[in-house]
């Protein structure tokens, strides 16, 4: 049977305009990659938002897979932005194949 290893999957909901702050943090910590998933609307404590690219209210979901230590370092690095800029971060354990890649 194929061998899998456990890694952390982290997803961060962030303003598209500030996406680079998140991906730069990922790069800085030395995680191998990330992928952007579009989102179109949502609701939070500050009310409803909708993707309106003309006005630049868009958000994105940044997803990245990393070893536990790097994942925690990323969470640490992003924590101020979470409070400050209204980002949402969640992470959980996943099994991956070719673990040396992440």
């Amino acid at each position, binding site marked *: 049977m194929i061998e899998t290893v456990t890694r952390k999957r982290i997803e961060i909901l962030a*303003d598209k*305009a*500030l996406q680079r702050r998140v991906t730069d943090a990922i790069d800085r910590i030395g995680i191998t990659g990330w992928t952007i998933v579009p989102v*179109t609307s949502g609701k939070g404590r*500050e*009310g*409803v938002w*909708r*993707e*309106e*690219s*003309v*006005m*630049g*209210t868009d958000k994105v979901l940044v997803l990245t897979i990393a070893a536990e230590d790097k994942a925690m370092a990323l969470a640490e690095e992003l924590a101020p932005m979470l409070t*400050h*800029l209204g980002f949402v971060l969640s992470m959980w354990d996943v099994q991956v194949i070719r673990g040396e890649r992440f």
Partner: protein
Amino acid sequence: MFETAIQTFTSPVVLFFVLGLFAAFARSDLAIPEPIAKAMSLYLMAAIGLKGGVAVSKSGVDVTVVSALGAGIAAGFILPFFAYGVLKTFGKLDRINSGAVAAHYGSISVVTFVTAVEILTGQSREPGGYMVAVMAAMEAPAILSGLLLARGMGSKAGTQSTGEMLHEVFTNSSIMLLLGAFVIGMVGGEVGFAPVSPFFEAGFKGVLCIFLLDMGLIAMRRIMESRSITWRLGAIAIFLPIVNGAVGTTLGVVIGLDAGSAAALGVLCASASYIAVPAAMRLALPDADPGIYLTMSLSITFPFNVLINIGLISALAASLTGANGAMQ
């Protein structure tokens, strides 16, 4: 005045805007797909830039043009200070939000300008082609003033350097496209423009209709869901365009512009940005609340300008320049 209002309300451009407001109010699911809305805004920028560039390539740059540019840039820098004062005291906003909103009101709205040109042209008061250059020149200064006001003297750690900020302002997609198309229009001139004019000129008003339909939808949905707008902010969103419009129009007449161009300068001062400046603010002032600045500029000031204030400004320009009323 009355005829002007009639004219405004039989223009398809304005009627589509009203349809958008109505459909959103009636909770219709009508919506323009996002990529289309974005593409229309890019199209409008490119078309208006090209047209302005071609106009300046024909007319050349004379004293009128230079003084209009100077007046516009000065207004862009100065108007935010006035707006900031009103927002901070009467509006009860904090420093950051006051600065952000002030930047919007000091800058300009391309679509308001374009709609005003439609309406003014219908009243035989077509503004000079160089007013597009004035518009382009007025996009950025207010952003700088607004950021200065928002950040105060001791700018916090973690915020951008001035260099980064200037880079972001001038590489902002709408400013880049507007200026780029302006230069292309100047380089290509009328001969270069001819083959692309069916696309950029003949289609212009139709695209504007659909774009305004979308803006009507978004403006109304936004205000219906808004949680951050107090009556004070609502009042400011009407008050500022009236004052700024009157100031701009008077300024235009003083520096010797014709009635149409003076009215156009008034509209530029009265209008509040909702494309370029919000994009810049998301980056430069991410703590400011878009629920305030977008709702004020797009949901209150923009409809007020399109439906009422352009008419008022046009009448003011006419009376100040001694031209008689609409449709002479």
